[in-house]
């Protein structure tokens, strides 16, 4: 049996670690504030079961767009190929379904991995700036997706055979969330329990130092891009199911912003070196709460929602980068 003193000690350790969590993750404050504000303004709508389920669903989708690229952003590079992987990966599933049957869903992670590997090798070996490279990749893949739809003469690239995935075995827990969970666990494991997380941060915060400490910088950069592609590929399955077992066929820049917004709001600076998937998850939650809450507010035109959220993000990003600069100087 634990003595009173020991129990007190454990209590203070827990309190200290919670305090630390809140201190280093300002997104926690934002989440608490958003929940309090929207619960007060529109309690019946915001706290309804269906809305909470919707939040969970949207959280799964947003985090699946953002968790993979977080590793690349840790390096101080950027990877926006997630849109391309998600869109064209779905087209590939649709194309291959007649031949491979249900197994064709496995093309998602494989395709993601290959795109990530390609990005990494070209970025590192040919020294192509990562943003230009990955946005070009996304442009090509988005075009190909639309092209597949057009020449097939169909409206949507839907694969109804996967509909069974849409049903969740657990009540109130949406299936996209369940599908996202293993990806989240994998990302957190890589970040905290393998040396990869440390190496990525090392390269992002002090590339010269990482090199001098004997890290094969080129190899781990390629690995980060590959990992980003793989996680996005895996995560895209959750988004695919969320959209009713189909993929998006037209490119929407606001979806592109969504992933980056989750990363930056969570507190992984685009300059790299700190943060990680855990922060991205918090950032995804912040993003989803803002969107969801504003949607419920009376008097907010849903058509203008993207504008509001976009403007809000702009402010948040500027504030976050300023606060960070302050922290670095102090």
């Amino acid at each position, binding site marked *: 049996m634990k003595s009173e003193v020991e129990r007190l000690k454990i209590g203070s350790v827990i309190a200290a670690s919670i305090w630390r969590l809140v201190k280093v993750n300002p997104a926690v404050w934002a989440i608490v504030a958003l929940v309090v504000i929207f619960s007060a303004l529109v309690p019946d709508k915001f706290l309804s079961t269906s809305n909470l389920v919707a939040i969970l669903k949207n959280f799964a989708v947003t985090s699946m767009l953002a968790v993979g690229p977080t590793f690349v952003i840790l390096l101080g590079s950027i990877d926006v190929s997630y849109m391309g992987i998600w869109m064209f990966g779905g087209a590939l599933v649709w194309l291959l379904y007649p031949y491979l049957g249900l197994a064709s869903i496995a093309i998602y992670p494989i395709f993601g991995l290959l795109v990530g590997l390609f990005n990494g090798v070209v970025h590192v070996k040919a020294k192509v700036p990562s943003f230009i490279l990955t946005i070009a990749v996304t442009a090509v893949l988005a075009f190909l997706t639309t092209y597949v739809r057009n020449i097939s003469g169909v409206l949507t690239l839907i694969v109804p055979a996967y509909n069974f995935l849409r049903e969740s075995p657990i009540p109130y827990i949406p299936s996209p969330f369940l599908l996202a969970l293993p990806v989240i666990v994998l990302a957190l494991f890589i970040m905290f329990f393998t040396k990869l997380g440390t190496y990525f*941060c090392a390269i992002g915060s*002090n590339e010269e130092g990482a090199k001098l400490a004997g890290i094969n910088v080129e190899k781990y950069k390629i690995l980060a891009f590959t990992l980003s592609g793989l996680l996005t590929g895996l995560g895209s399955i959750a988004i695919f199911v969320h959209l009713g077992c189909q993929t998006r066929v037209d490119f929407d820049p606001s979806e592109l912003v969504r992933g980056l917004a989750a990363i930056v709001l969570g507190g992984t600076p685009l300059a790299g070196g700190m943060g990680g998937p855990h922060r991205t998850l918090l950032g995804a939650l912040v993003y989803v709460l803002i969107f969801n809450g504003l949607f419920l507010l009376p008097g907010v035109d849903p058509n203008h929602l993207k504008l509001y959220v976009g403007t809000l993000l702009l402010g948040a990003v500027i504030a976050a980068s300023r606060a960070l600069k302050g922290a670095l100087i102090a």
Partner: protein
Amino acid sequence: MGTLDPILEVRDVSKTFDRVVRALDNVSIMVRRNEIVSVVGENGAGKSTLMKILVGVYQPDSGEMYQMGRKVPFPRDPLDALSRGISIVYQERGVIPHLKVYQFLFLGLEEKFTRLGRLQLGKIIGLAKSVFEELGLKCDLASSMYELPPSTQKMVEIARAILSVRLMVGMDGEAEIIPVIILDEPTAPLSIEERDELFNYLLNLKKSNSFIFVSHIIPEVMKFSDRIYVLRDGRVVAHHDLSSEKVTEDQIFREIVGRESYYDLWARYVYGAGAVEGRRVVLSVRNLTKKGYFENISFDLHEGECIGLFGPAGCGKSEIAKALYGEIAADAGEILVDSRKVKLKSEPYARVKLGIGYFSGETGKELFLFWPIRKNVSIVNFDKVTKRPLKIISVISFNAERSLAEKIMKKLRIRAPNVETECYSLSGGNKQKVSVGKWLEKSPKILVLEDPTIGIDVGAREEIYEVLLEMKKNGIAMILVSDDPKEYAILCDKIISIRGGVIQATYTNEEFRRLMGL
């Protein structure tokens, strides 16, 4: 005013950083007309802080300042100092390589030579010519700064300091204000001959200016100064007027370090009483060459031996070290680790695998400042802090990480609350200890050291030396590159003198100490 009256004086200056580090403690110095005053002391003795107060970079906590006998406030900023006749030539970063000499000379002063937005080049060049003539400086005004030899670059910098004082003060003949030019370690990048050239130049300029000369090289200080202030731990511990008293170099040295000598450190740790001949050769370098940097470098490094590559900055010593740990690739020659040839073109990670580690004292170069000590230690030690439940997965064990970091903290006496302390909050010496500590458990065969104790105080230095010497005693071989002759005397068994990229001579520790007067 008599010639002996001070033109610039500070009294009882104190300065504390971060409320704890006492950088200056009631320091008083003065400068007379037409003299060279030296301020000597170790790194961290407070020399730089004092100079920065004189030019307005820092404000002192307390103290008084007098100019021409009148009490004046301390300068608010460098521009204010300049307008009062005080200017500084910094040790490094002074020269802008791609500017032409006259452009550099008037950098920041162009305003005074602009009419209707157009720079009056003719006027500038004319003035530059007359100034150079007056100062006895011979060089082509139209050449770029980087084309000049290092000593001439320094002279141009000094000329610029004098010129800016004159222009800012607006002196027209009636020399009420005599420029006081502070020279911060001006000879650091220069060879011996170039140093003499620079000093002859200064002796000439002394007729119309006064100089404060900051240095830690005792012989040159003795040769060219009129008076010497010795600073130690933020206090003036001695003041000598060389025109009236006889002082020996030994005496000054003792005053600087505050005790007899700490070169006995080396002797305490000498590996097998200096006999390395029977030891295994861990690194052989044969005719290593990189065009334009170094040529035909050959030596053998034994287990537990430390070889110093000694020479002025730019002699190729740092490039040789870089070629050894894989930062740059040599063009020709051979590097053998444990008698096996290794590729000349390589990367640091491949060299780490071969057992070559690297440690620099430059803060932040290979330390992750925003990481806890624990992570900074485990970055090179992942094989020690991970477990393998499956063959392909290695999982970090936080307990192993923590206990490894704790072990190193204890061994190196790193002063920090715990292993989770982020490194930016540590003092310079403790940062360096974390930096070197990570190699302690890794035990590389060879450790390349670059300025291992740059910018830290005496006490911390000694601790770093002890750690390094202990590692050496345990058989780790070392290559040292530094700017400080004392460091070579403390750490090295053998010193290879390099000049212009080629080996000039090889000395034993004793020979080297005799030669340097240490």
